[in-house]
């Protein structure tokens, strides 16, 4: 959906640089998350999608920045596309999500967007499929 270039390589080093620069807060957020799902109801997109768990804020940061962190930046183009789908299509960064443990979920999603951008993966409005 959103590759600006057709380059098939991923610059793992560049991803790691972003990960390293944000290691402390990222590691803490990922470790502290109780996987309790209480943030679900605070996201309007979760409601709009009839409670689809993939729209739960924690599901979004665990499967974007969490995935990049666990794999130490080793993802392929397909993986980056999946992540960009999560961080742009399933989240609008409205910052309204609420976590009782005070995890800054939007910051984590913004970080994953940064990493996508570092690999020339963007959200491209002109390629957006309109719902039927």
């Amino acid at each position, binding site marked *: 959906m959103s590759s600006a270039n057709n380059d098939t390589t991923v610059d793992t080093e560049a991803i790691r640089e972003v990960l390293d620069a*944000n290691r*402390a*807060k990222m590691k*803490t957020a990922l*470790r*502290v*998350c*109780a*996987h*309790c*799902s*209480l943030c*679900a*109801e*605070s996201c309007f997109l979760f409601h709009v999608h009839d*409670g689809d*768990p*993939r729209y*739960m804020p*924690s*599901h979004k940061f*665990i499967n974007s920045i969490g995935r990049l962190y666990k794999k130490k930046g080793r993802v392929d183009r397909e993986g980056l596309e999946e992540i960009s789908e999560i961080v742009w299509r399933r989240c609008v960064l409205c*910052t309204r999500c*609420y*976590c*009782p*443990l*005070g*995890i*800054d979920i*939007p910051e984590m999603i913004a970080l994953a967007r940064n990493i996508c951008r570092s690999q020339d993966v963007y959200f491209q409005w002109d390629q957006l499929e309109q719902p039927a």
Partner: protein
Amino acid sequence: MYDLVRGPFVWVAFIVFIVGTVYQVVRFYALSRETSPFRLTKPTGGPPKTEAPPAEPVLTFGQRMRLSIAGTSPVMITVTTVFHVLLVLTPIFVLGHNVLWDLAWGVSPPSLSEAFTDVLTLIVIAGGVYFLGRRLFMARVRAITSAYDYAILAIATAPFITGFLAYRHIFDYDTVIILHMLAGEIMLIAIPFTKLVHMPFFFINRFLLVHENTFGAGGTRIWR
């Protein structure tokens, strides 16, 4: 075995728990810095005055409660509050523990009756069973659950389950009490190094960090 688990292991567990927790807090301070909270200031001069915002909050207390997680997940919030309060307080007032404190130090916190702490123990276990049920049967919880979450739930409730079995003398007491002490020690050691580290980080995240949902004045620190 019994002497080892009742003696040195207890101290090791408490020291790891305390030093580990202090380490996490010190590490947070080392990796974060003071910042001035973000404040919007009123511009001077400029366009004519607009109507003053209402002094009363726009939403009533009841409306705000209904929109909070206590309103959207009332059962979970009730269960988790009771679970956490009793999880921390019960062990402090268990007679069996205080006898041991007394033997070691000559002082101990006051004890509640064993019959009462037994009920509290059962309530904590019931909370654990509720969390387990959510994890197994609610799609949204299952979607972010891995074996690790079950392991942590087991580590957190094991001291209560084994403590209960020991008090009721269900199964062989000598074995159960050793298992109980081991379970308690494992739980204490696990707190600073697993997702149970949310114990200190709840307070760091909600009171110290500048963040959308910080309580009170809005926090003063940000990660470097």
